[in-house]
């Protein structure tokens, strides 16, 4: 697959943002700050990659924040109430995420609900379920008990890459969080799936032209359900990272994160019209949002102004997406006249 000019432009914009804040914001260009950026936004990048799948098939998943909360609480319960060993909790968490996502997909394809409506409903339902199963409420005393299982808390780990490479003395590198490497591994797996497997190609086909996909004999329902399941699994991985960091889960875990993830995916060039985009973009999108937020904070810009600026970036990205679409239509229309 060729590298799209839009991806290059985004990457350059990201680089320019880093340079801008490095020059203008105090303490931005420090190892600690980049460590914060990586630990604070690797899981956002994971969520954005997951979100790219529903958007790719011309849908959207509003429920991922609620799935983060649900999976977080499942992990909390399994570990603290049932004392299940961590190596069993990890796969269970992923399965819960996958099922929650697949249910979204099933609602959309079988009940023919609008993705926006279906996932808005499950957003409420999953959050409600989280409160219902909350071990913090059900068992007294658990509210202050930390999760200690080393399979889980081990996820929150940092590596002195600079030290290993022997350049830490010359040039202070940040310590890299495990979540950053998880994000890279997930990127490798999912991007390979998209670009080199039949299922990946089918995802693009269904998003690009669902009727054409159906008439080409593609099982479009299965493809759509799969897309939402991937989104759910990514939310589950995010939940594990967050529980490991906080050593606990709350009912509100992940609240509102869907908006950041959708913003990152769209900024990353995953077209809301479906059928176009790669996973590199959402990652850059997530870290771009992160860099802007950290940079503005270091510059002393108030939080609410930061939100306005984030919204502005999102609008610009969506506007650019529309512009590309209109230009494409215009060009097609012109060809018709030439042919006529």
């Amino acid at each position, binding site marked *: 697959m060729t590298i799209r000019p839009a991806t290059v432009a985004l990457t350059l914009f990201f680089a320019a943002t880093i340079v801008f804040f490095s020059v203008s914001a105090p303490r931005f260009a420090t190892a600690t700050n980049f460590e914060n950026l990586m630990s604070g936004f690797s899981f956002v990048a994971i969520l954005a990659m997951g979100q790219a799948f529903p958007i790719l098939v011309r849908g959207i998943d509003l429920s991922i924040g609620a799935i983060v909360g649900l999976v977080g609480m499942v992990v909390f319960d399994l570990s603290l109430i049932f004392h299940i060993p961590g190596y069993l909790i990890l796969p269970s968490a992923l399965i819960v995420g996958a099922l929650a996502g697949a249910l979204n997909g099933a609602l959309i394809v079988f009940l023919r609900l609008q993705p926006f409506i279906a996932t808005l409903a499950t957003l409420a339902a999953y959050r409600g379920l989280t409160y219902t199963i909350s071990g913090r409420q059900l068992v007294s005393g658990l509210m202050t008990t930390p999760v200690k299982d080393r399979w889980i808390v081990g996820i929150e780990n940092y590596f002195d890459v600079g030290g290993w490479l022997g350049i830490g003395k010359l040039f202070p590198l940040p310590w890299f969080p495990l979540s950053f490497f998880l994000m890279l591994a997930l990127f490798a797996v999912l991007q390979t799936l998209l670009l080199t497997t039949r299922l990946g190609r089918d995802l693009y*086909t269904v998003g690009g032209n669902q009727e054409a996909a159906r008439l*080409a004999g593609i099982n479009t329902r299965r493809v759509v359900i799969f897309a939402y399941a991937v989104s759910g699994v990514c939310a589950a991985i995010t939940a594990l990272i967050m529980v490991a960091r906080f050593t606990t889960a709350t009912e509100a875990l992940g609240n509102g994160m869907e908006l950041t993830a959708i913003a990152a995916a769209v900024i990353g060039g995953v*077209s809301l019209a479906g059928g176009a985009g790669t996973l590199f973009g959402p990652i850059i999108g997530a870290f771009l949002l992160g860099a802007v937020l950290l940079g503005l904070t270091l510059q002393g810009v108030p939080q609410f102004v930061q939100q306005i600026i984030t919204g502005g970036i999102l609008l610009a990205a969506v506007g650019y997406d529309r512009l590309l679409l209109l230009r494409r239509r215009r060009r097609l229309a012109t060809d018709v006249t030439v*042919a006529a």
Partner: protein
Amino acid sequence: MTGVPLIRGIGLTKVYGNLVALQDADFAVMAGEVRALIGSNGAGKSTLIKVLTGAIAPTSGRIEIGGVAAPLGDPREMIRRGVACIYQHSNLAPAMSVLDNIFLGRQPTHRFGFVDARRQRREAMDLLARHEIDLDLSATVANLPTVKQKEVEILKALALDARVILMDEPTGWLAASEVAKLHATIRALKSRGVGIVYISHVLDEIFAVCGTMTIMRDARVIAESAVADTDRSRVVHLMVGEKLARESEQAAHHKRQPRGTGEVRLKADKLTRRGVFRDVSFELCAGEILCLTGLIGSRRTELVRTLFGADRFDDGTLEIGGQPAEFRSPRGAMAGGIGFVPEDRHRDGLMLDMTMTENLAMATLNRFVRGLFLSRTAMVAAAKHAIASLSIQPPHGNRTVKLLSGGNQQKVLLGKWLNRTPRILVLDEPTVGIDVGAKAEIYAILRRERERGAAILVVSSDLEEVTTIADRIGVMVSGRLVAIHDADAVGMHQLVREIGGAEQ
């Protein structure tokens, strides 16, 4: 040609609500046969094709492939059994490469579902070479010109190595040289024993490439014959039917008023909307009915939308009543005295959940304003008058519109605009999906408006309708108005030829 048909449909029927799109159709294609499927718009050809490819399931009837019953409404199974189709409308994934589109949904794979990219490219190169088609496999489909996209579509069907290929107007966007190339491909496929179904409105193509033909009219298969045993006039006669021949004779007795009173109400000069229609020039006079006809996609609807201000034009001039006009919105066009009855009455025309009275008053609400409020009584009175003069059944103004029959819904829509006594009335497919009786009533209403002195522009693909009501007939082909005739001076054959894009 004897033996078992490659594909055979028996008693195929498809019903949508009140509309019978396909009725009890029998259809078969033998190995090495190129069968033309012809009929006017709405005759059921595309429905038959869609049933055969599994894109839709028939309401009743069955399909056999090689003598064995095939599952219905399952495109995957039909492809697996060797039935491929080139659809009339694009069925490509625009953001993907040409290569991916050719193998849509069936890329060759290694184990674990990894796409075998090398084999895919090699097979595609083979195909390109074998059919002498020149395409950049890595190009993104959305960036290709329409003609090239059509070639991708054709290649996609050929790549299936199918035993039956259905082609629904495959030459729609192709240039003459490319049509010839496609016909060469068809002959090569035929010699390999592939069965081909070929839909086209261009009779020349059918006589050039097809061996047999099936003719459809009014959702039924009405005739089958060998191409060699028939001639053009007979085919046209079968296509349009006895009734139309009779009707058009009768219609000849109606007083035609080409150019009406001679007062030009609307004048378009070299009107152009880039990429849609080009250099359209005509005059519409008071007291005449001008019909614009042409194939689906000939941009008639787009043209009248522009006249009404729903879309803008890029070039040329438009004069209404002698004054230059460029309406920026339907509101402006209405103020200029234009009424517009759109094609899809459910989507664009009526508020289905509201009552007849409310719908009838919708375009003229200002008249019912009394102080701050709308006068319910005045609305009801006006509606009563309209219902009586249009003889809408049942004559109850408080009836919800969606409960009415199609013909009566159309009368409500018409009545909504007639309330404004428009100087220019534009109607897009005014009688689609309504029965014969209601059609006649609507024609009578249009004639009455004509006598009143309105200038009427009707867009219609229904030749029966066109020859019945038109004073003048304009033919559109691919965004151009290629001819305007006085209705009395033009024969059915010439119309059919011109609509199909034959040279003058």
